[in-house]
């Protein structure tokens, strides 16, 4: 019984984490933290889109900028599609726009990672509180 409850808890935290990765803020939304979710979604999506606008989708480079790509992938798995498109080399970008675009999209991904961890932690805390009641 205890093991089953522990499994459910892990599954729930995991599903919140996956939701938060799929769409920024969705993890908090699932936890009924709607204002927090809206703020996180708006801030991360705007930062990511600003990075793409500054440097084009060429800043997502899974071949020559793997560490940046890992950070960008934290935004959402949908970034992999952009990476697949940019892999063709049809969107070249160099110099300052490349730097700023990579920094914006990479930081947006790392901020989403922070939100994923926060959502999982909040889900875990709630489970503990409900189990304690």
């Amino acid at each position, binding site marked *: 019984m205890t093991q089953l409850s522990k499994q459910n808890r892990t599954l729930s935290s995991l599903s919140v984490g996956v939701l938060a990765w799929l769409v920024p803020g969705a993890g908090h939304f699932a936890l009924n933290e709607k204002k927090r979710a809206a703020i996180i979604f708006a801030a*991360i999506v705007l930062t990511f889109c600003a990075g793409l606008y500054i*440097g084009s989708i060429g800043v997502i480079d899974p071949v020559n900028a793997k560490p940046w790509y890992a950070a960008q992938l934290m935004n959402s798995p949908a970034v992999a599609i952009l990476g697949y498109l940019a892999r063709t080399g049809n969107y070249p970008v160099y110099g300052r726009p490349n730097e700023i675009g990579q920094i914006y999209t990479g930081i947006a991904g790392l901020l989403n990672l*922070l939100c994923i961890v926060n959502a999982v932690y909040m889900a875990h805390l709630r489970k503990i509180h409900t189990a304690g009641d």
Partner: protein
Amino acid sequence: MLFIWLICEKYIQPETKMSAAAFILASFTSPERISTNPQSVLWLLPLVAAIAVVYKATKVPTIKISSFLKEAVILFGSIIVFMLVTALVLCALAWLITD
């Protein structure tokens, strides 16, 4: 919002809508021109604002717009002041070493 949407539906031609969508999508396929002058450092300001907002969104226990904005602005200001102080110290060090 609905009113704007209704006006758009009534008065804007489908071709115009398509070209607007194409224009928006095309703006994400070519980079902006950013020169390497000192003003380009100002690009850090929106990024710092985003960091302050997201960090505070994960930290505050309850979200109340006025207190949340206040905390985010304080963090934003703190980061900027810290970066300015660091820049000044580095400038002073460079000046001491080179002169």
